[in-house]
């Protein structure tokens, strides 16, 4: 099955692509709505600013295609900013709407800790997770972000703490996302990507 990697004009796309291909996945870069409409599974990577991401999707007419794909039940994996954009909105870009797959708002990490949260951190499991299957408790993942989705989201399956608890992994049916960078998280990161691939119908 071919994976569509959403290309909104910036971001960590090449390393995500390389990591997925190393696991044997076939990938194509989706830069137009038709590529998303025909995709059997979608990966949504992103780094940078929330506003630039949603503007990039809008300018390429990808927003509606992604919303239609999610409504049709197409499996989707969000990575880093890709996770945040799946939420309703972000404090990073007040007034800009996210994709709204999850109803909460993304918040800024508190000023009591160093921000960006850059480096390797551990997860706290909240409930059973498809993406984290087979990964030992205490494993470290690489994070690089200043904003985060609330751990209290009903979709949160694993949290991380940096000043506040935030959602590190969210899952709801065919929708999955991680705040960390699996493509930069060594062997355990590759396992997360493999778990996503193996979850596909």
């Amino acid at each position, binding site marked *: 099955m071919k994976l569509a990697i959403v290309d909104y004009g*910036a971001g*960590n796309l*090449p*390393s995500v692509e*390389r*990591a997925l291909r190393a696991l044997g996945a076939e990938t194509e870069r989706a830069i137009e709505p038709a590529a998303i409409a025909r995709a059997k599974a979608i990966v949504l990577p992103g*780094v*940078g*600013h929330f506003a*630039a991401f949603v503007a990039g999707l809008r300018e390429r007419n990808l927003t509606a295609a992604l919303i239609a794909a999610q409504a049709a039940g197409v499996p989707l994996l969000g990575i880093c*900013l890709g996770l945040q954009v799946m939420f309703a909105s972000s404090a990073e870009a007040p007034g800009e709407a996210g994709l709204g797959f999850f109803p909460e708002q993304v918040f800024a990490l508190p*000023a009591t800790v*160093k*921000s*960006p*949260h*850059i*480096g*390797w*951190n*551990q*997860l*706290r499991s909240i409930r059973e997770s498809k993406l984290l299957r087979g990964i030992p408790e205490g494993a*470290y993942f*690489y994070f*690089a*972000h*200043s904003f985060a989705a609330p751990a209290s989201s009903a979709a949160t399956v694993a949290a*991380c*703490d*940096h000043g506040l608890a935030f959602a590190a992994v969210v899952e709801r049916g065919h929708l999955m996302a991680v705040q960390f*960078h699996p*493509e*930069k*998280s*060594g*062997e355990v*990161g*590759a396992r997360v990507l493999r778990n996503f691939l193996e979850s596909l119908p």
Partner: protein
Amino acid sequence: MTLARRIIPCLDVDGGRVVKGVEFEGLRDMGDPAALAARYNREGADELAVLDISASSQGRGTFLGTIRAVAEQLNIPLTAGGGIRTMEEGRAVLLAGADKVTVNTAAVERPELISELSRQFGAQAVVLSLDARRKGASWEAYVRGGRQPTGRDAAAWAAEAVSRGAGEILLTSIDRDGTRSGFDCELTAAIAATVPVPVIASGGASTFEDFFAVFTRGQADAALAASIFHQETHSIAALKEFLAARGIPVRLSR
């Protein structure tokens, strides 16, 4: 659950080869960047830095190719830079496969470069490389490979760079660089207390105790070293075991 302190091997690259300056007199070939990158990726490095120190324009021309070859070998983050002067050069480094780009001299000369890169790629992708030398009770920022004083206070410049959008500081002590007399913990602690972003300490690493000191007294979030790892004086795994036994949170591989 704690954010781990990072160990970052650094490849100083000239014309496609990893080099090490010997007492500022000559450069010694230390090997192929991609081969070293693969080794560090395997041995549990938390991140890799690749810095272009080419003196010649021919050397500079090969740097993007080196970044691509190195990135191919990694499933950990890659920081790259050295001589980045413009937004376009920064973009090229990131598109070649780096996750973060470092800026130094050009950012001192035109601080807007930091804002531009940060707006486009996010603060997490922009690292201020700050070379500092002690001057009385504080430290002065230097540019051009640590040769030219700027007249600017290092802490003040670090704070300005962060306010302009730098997401991390790569802090090199010129006094300690190449001396193997330990990190400058005083400098590192002073900058770490000034800025709200992570600080990577560099310059002077020799023993495991030096790393312990810079993570405790120095308050560093990460520590960078080059030759002690290249020469296999120390393995990264052994260093991390040592730090873990002393209560420093580190990521032990697998």
